[in-house]
């Protein structure tokens, strides 16, 4: 008895064979364990491949994800060897579960803590509902009990540095009533530049 070929099997599974070929194949598969197993295996494979096509996200959504990543290039003439660090988000009040029975009224300040190595950047974001602006207040802290004073801090959106400031004696900084937008925040330390991606998202 001749076993089915993969090509015949695929013609059958795709509905591309004649009634005679279909009948012959079905008859053989019904009595052949090996070919029955092969048919099932390819049936599952084709199903899983087709399912995958249905999980394709919209192209603009994928591009949004790609466009999230916009590292800052050093200005020309800047010293070489500047290291860049991407800070990790370790705490976000928006990620904390609400207490049972609590309802959110208005937009409470959001507290975020980012960490890069032994440097923490604490950020509080307050939303001004009246004029669609936000205020970011932060502090750059070191686990070595060192203060980062007079340190440049930048707020960037869409590839452009929008606002600059410097930290005070105890590493604090603020950006008052800036327009709501998706911002990345960068802190220029002697050890390197720390970037906080999407410290604020424009629609939140």
């Amino acid at each position, binding site marked *: 008895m001749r076993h089915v*070929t*993969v*090509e015949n*099997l*695929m*013609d059958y599974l795709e509905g*591309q064979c004649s009634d005679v070929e279909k009948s012959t194949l079905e008859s053989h598969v019904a009595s052949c364990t090996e070919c029955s197993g092969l048919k099932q*295996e*390819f049936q599952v*494979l*084709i199903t*899983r*491949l*087709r*399912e*995958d*096509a*249905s*999980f*394709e*996200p*919209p192209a603009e*959504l*994928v591009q*949004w*994800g*790609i466009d*999230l*990543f*916009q*590292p*800052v*290039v050093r*200005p020309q003439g800047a010293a070489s060897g500047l290291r*860049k*660090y*991407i*800070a*990790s*988000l370790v705490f976000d009040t928006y*990620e904390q*579960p*609400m207490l049972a029975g609590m*309802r*959110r009224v208005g937009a409470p300040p959001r507290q975020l803590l*980012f960490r*890069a190595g032994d440097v923490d950047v604490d950020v509080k974001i307050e939303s001004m509902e009246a004029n669609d602006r936000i205020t970011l207040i932060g502090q750059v802290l070191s686990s070595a009990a060192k203060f980062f004073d007079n340190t440049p801090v930048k707020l*960037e959106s869409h*590839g*452009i*540095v929008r606002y600059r400031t410097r930290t005070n004696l105890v590493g604090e900084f603020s950006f008052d009533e800036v327009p709501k937008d998706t911002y990345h925040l960068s802190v220029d330390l002697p050890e390197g530049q720390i970037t906080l*991606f*999407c410290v604020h*998202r424009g629609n939140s």
Partner: protein
Amino acid sequence: MEIQETPLVPSSRHNNSYTDRTDPELVSMCLNGDVAAWEALVRRYRRLIYSVPRRFGFNKQDSADVFQSVCLKLIENLHHLKDDTRLGGWLVITSSRTCLNLMASRQREPDTVGLEFDDRLDPERNVEELRLYVEEQQEIRDSVNELPGRCRALIDMLYLDANSPSYQEISEIIGMPLGSIGSNRARCLEKLRKIIRDRGIK
């Protein structure tokens, strides 16, 4: 003086040198500011991330919200993931948690109008089961990417292209005689089957 940002590596140059990189390699390249490496990661896992909310029964709008949240979390956690060879597993868990958080936040606001879930979460498909399914689906995708170029292109167009091109279109695009698509399909699927078996996927 404002500084204009430009990518260190143009993201439009998406070539094999990135698609062949492992996850830890791509993450390290991202941490060094390589935009194309980030694009490769997003493209590699776009379906995995998007499939989780879709399998939870979320509509496309909510699934898009989950997708965006997970991309943000991935960027924020790159530093923690640079040695992680199982980025897919982390993405599934993160995507699942984001879905559950979104559902929980909606339920906690009973006066929110316009709840837009197409289907309720299937109580019989728990998160662990979903994780196994989604990870296996990613293994199948990765197996397809291991196929030789022409085979990969053929399988992509036959089964993974949402536009469902005809055999005639496939023949013209790949440069394969129309009459040979059937036999090549069989040959490529057999190769894929072997790759999947070698990966230990049942």
